[in-house]
């Protein structure tokens, strides 16, 4: 999918340049685009290093674990098929906490573990169970407390206040998570009515 979009963007652009006579601009764009990407990544280093460093302290101090205990009563309600003390619940909670704090790399292995456990609950079948769909719905709309990379990009472009989008992002992400849960429930009830 990405492959097709990527190739199309470039080829359509080059074809347009042939017809429109914008070849000089396109030539310039190739080198400027590459240069901008590298500059951007260098700018990202500062905030990524700082934030992931902070998060490591939170993790080592057990803050993430503590938070997941706090959220346990709510989350168990979202997954009625999973027994309360099942390991799947632990993985789901830690995955959600890691996502919340922007620890994508830590979240993925935990999420895969959660999926494995849910597959066991579902008798090892190769189709998605109700809990899996709920889990993925929450994951694709995951609540982010601090959009680290976005703040870094805003800093790169000399924003007057790079963090002023934190509040709006939090509100939007909560809306999309609530939306995800409601949509997931809607499809579940539709499925179960069909039998």
């Amino acid at each position: 999918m990405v492959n097709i979009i990527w190739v199309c963007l470039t080829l359509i652009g080059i074809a347009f340049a042939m017809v429109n006579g914008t070849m000089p601009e396109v030539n310039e764009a190739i080198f400027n685009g590459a240069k901008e990407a590298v500059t951007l990544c260098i700018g990202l280093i500062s905030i990524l290093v700082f934030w992931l460093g902070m998060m490591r302290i939170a993790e080592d101090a057990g803050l993430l674990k503590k938070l997941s205990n706090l959220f346990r009563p709510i989350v168990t309600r979202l997954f009625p098929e999973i027994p309360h003390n099942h390991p799947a619940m632990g993985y789901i909670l830690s995955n959600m906490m890691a996502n919340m704090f922007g620890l994508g790399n830590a979240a993925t292995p935990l999420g895969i573990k959660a999926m494995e456990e849910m597959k066991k609950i579902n008798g090892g079948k190769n189709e998605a169970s109700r809990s899996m769909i709920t889990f993925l719905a929450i994951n694709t709309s995951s609540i982010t407390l601090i959009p680290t990379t976005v703040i870094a990009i805003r800093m790169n472009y000399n924003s007057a206040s790079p963090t002023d989008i934190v509040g709006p992002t939090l509100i939007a992400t909560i809306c999309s998570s609530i939306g995800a849960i409601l949509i997931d429930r809607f499809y579940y009830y539709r499925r179960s009515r069909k039998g």
Partner: protein
Amino acid sequence: MGIVTAISLWFIPVLIAVILLYGTYKQVPTYESFVEGGKEGIKIAVSIIPFLVGMLVAISVFRASGALEYFMSFLKPVLEAIGVPPEIAPLAIIRPISGTAALGMTSDLMAQHGPDSYIGRLAATLQGSTDTTFYVLTVYFGAVGIKKMGDALKVGLLADLVGIIAAIVVVTIVFGY
């Protein structure tokens, strides 16, 4: 809307203070932990360079050739009718498909319109509030060998749509058009 601005301003420093206090209280070697975690940040930043170079070159070519403007002139009336700024449309489409591609587009929009413009803020909020649905589905279902995804894709994409609408509404209310 003073509250949202205040949250934006206070949130990060307060969170840092809480983490440091709690870490000290739990006798974590705070500075050493920080350094260890920070090393990972360098790895991530360097590893996304090729993704961004590829995508930003493609977008730059597409825009410089005049193709972007041409397609936008078709999309504009439709999107404006439903309240979506046409500049945001490509980002909204690519966000669920590729996170790094979306990151490239977000930074491109900020370079074009400025980070503190309506478009710049909207792009930032959109990028921060939704996730790469296709990636998440592929990785998680792929890893445990689930072949039948059921309603998962539909639910994920509809949730993205909710996120996009929410981002537009919130940014318009908080910052004004």
